[in-house]
């Protein structure tokens, strides 16, 4: 039987009249990766902050938030001691060196000096920062800073790792490297909760995810299962607006935006038939992905 690391039932949060999180319920199994997806302002960060007591949930009847056996309203210190948190913005002490940044945090968790030193070497090795040990933060690239913030969150060997947009703004090499580290951590029994805007990131890492919109849960499930349940298998994107009127779209679900016409279908061959009269640069035929699903359920309008 799988064990839970997080149990949330009926979590709601208002900021004044604004409902940031609306009656959200989910469970996260131990040593799995759970994703919170949604457009800007969907309530992802608010929900994550509720897990560690940084945001206090509305105290409605029936609300339960339990993280590693603790209620954040009562035992925030215990939860933060057991969890590592990677915030959206890097907040390193820029005056200090890489290893000093980690050492300061080891103090917050009360690690003895020798344990801290050992842990710091391990983490620098793990995050491939050993050579930068004595470097000032200003000398680090964005990717290195991000890796250091993740290393910092791991200093107390957390049972739970919480990441708010871990790879936003990073190059593909760093993103892939960070994903590899996340998978390794999961194998050692660490439970991971993350928010992301990158659908490929969620598809790569998450065992379970929810898509949020305006504070509410819209969908939940394993990324692949969600796609196969809610979408056709293939999508044909037609990029030349001049040919839209000539397309025989009968039998397909279609969607039209300012610059594209999209035909969704389960059979590749029938979509290929549609492409026959088109020029090579006018269309793009591909399997559907999580981003298609995300846009389907949260809409294509801009949210901020």
């Amino acid at each position, binding site marked *: 039987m799988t064990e839970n690391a997080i149990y949330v039932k009926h979590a709601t949060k208002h900021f004044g009249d604004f409902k940031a999180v609306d009656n959200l319920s989910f469970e996260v199994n131990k040593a799995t990766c759970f994703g919170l997806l949604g457009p800007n302002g969907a309530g992802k960060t608010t929900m994550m902050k509720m897990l560690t007591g940084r945001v206090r949930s509305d105290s409605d009847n029936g609300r339960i938030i339990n*993280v590693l056996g603790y209620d954040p309203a009562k035992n925030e210190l215990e939860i933060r001691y057991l969890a590592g948190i990677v915030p959206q913005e890097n*907040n390193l002490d820029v005056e*200090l060196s890489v290893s000093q940044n980690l050492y300061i945090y080891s*103090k*917050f968790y009360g690690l003895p000096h020798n344990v801290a030193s050992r842990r710091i070497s391990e983490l620098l090795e793990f995050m491939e920062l050993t050579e930068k040990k004595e470097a000032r933060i200003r000398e680090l690239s964005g990717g290195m800073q991000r890796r250091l913030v993740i290393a910092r969150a791991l200093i107390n060997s957390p049972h739970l790792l919480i990441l708010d947009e871990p790879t936003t703004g990073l190059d593909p090499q760093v993103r892939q490297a960070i994903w590899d580290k996340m998978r390794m951590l999961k194998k050692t029994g660490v439970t991971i909760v993350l928010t992301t805007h990158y659908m490929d990131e969620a598809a790569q890492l998450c065992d379970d995810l929810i898509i949020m919109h305006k504070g509410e849960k819209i969908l939940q499930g394993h990324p692949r299962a969600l796609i196969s349940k809610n979408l056709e298998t293939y999508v044909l994107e037609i990029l030349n607006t001049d040919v839209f009127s000539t397309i025989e779209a009968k039998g397909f679900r279609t969607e039209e935006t300012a610059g594209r016409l999209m035909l969704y279908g389960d059979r590749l061959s029938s979509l290929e038939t549609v492409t026959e009269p088109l020029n090579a640069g006018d269309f793009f035929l591909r399997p559907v992905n999580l981003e298609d699903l995300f846009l389907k359920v949260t809409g294509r309008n801009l949210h901020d």
Partner: protein
Amino acid sequence: MTEAVLPQRIVTTPPPLAYRLYSVWYRHIRVYCKHLISNGFPPFVEPLFFLAGVGLGLGHYVGLIDGTPYLLFLASGMIAPSSMFTAAFECTFGTFIRLEFDKAYDGMVSASITVTDLFVGEMLFVGTKGFFFTLAVMSVFTVFGLVPSYFAILTPLVGFFAGMMFGALSLFVTSFVKTINHFNFFLTGCLTPMFFFSGIVFPITNLPEWIQWVSEVFPLTHSARLIRACCFGQFSSLLFFDILFMVAFTIVFGYLAVSRLEKRLIQ
């Protein structure tokens, strides 16, 4: 309805309060000491300039104050503001930058540190700064022969508690501030009058009575009075009220500051 499968509790013991306060204090000391010379030099040279300019220049015309040469009177007064200014700048601009720009507090309260730990630890840090600034200014004045009593060795201790007191007041002010420019109101509107009407540059006993009462509300009046008493080794039982004032002021404003800042950090 099936029963909720709550996660099994992982038994754990975060560090105790005293250690958490120490770790916050340690963080500030480490970051501050990175630029010790540029951070520490100006504040303790400034009283020397003030003393030279006002004490030597104006002192020539002033003569004795309460039987004391003006230069000695002024020197014993000028030790007190050093801990006020260092604490006030640290807990206004410094705190605001950590709060809004560096997001340093976000990181710290993500670790096993509470908001109370954060700001009490910070008050201990500015208390420590007050200790060393007072020690530095007192030592320099001693070298110039301006400190008559050995009891002056107690002034850094007063500096420590004065640092905490002004730290508490400044954190309270910071808890209201939305943009960094607002601090000018506090620094010019509060600290400058306090500097002139706390019996540092001239005794308050000859001022109109209502100003004397206002002066008694100023926290600087009390720390300055204690420091001057140490410098001259002249103690009276009335100083007990100055100590009481400082303790009460620190606790009240410290409490208000922490609870207001908590609302700002924990939504």
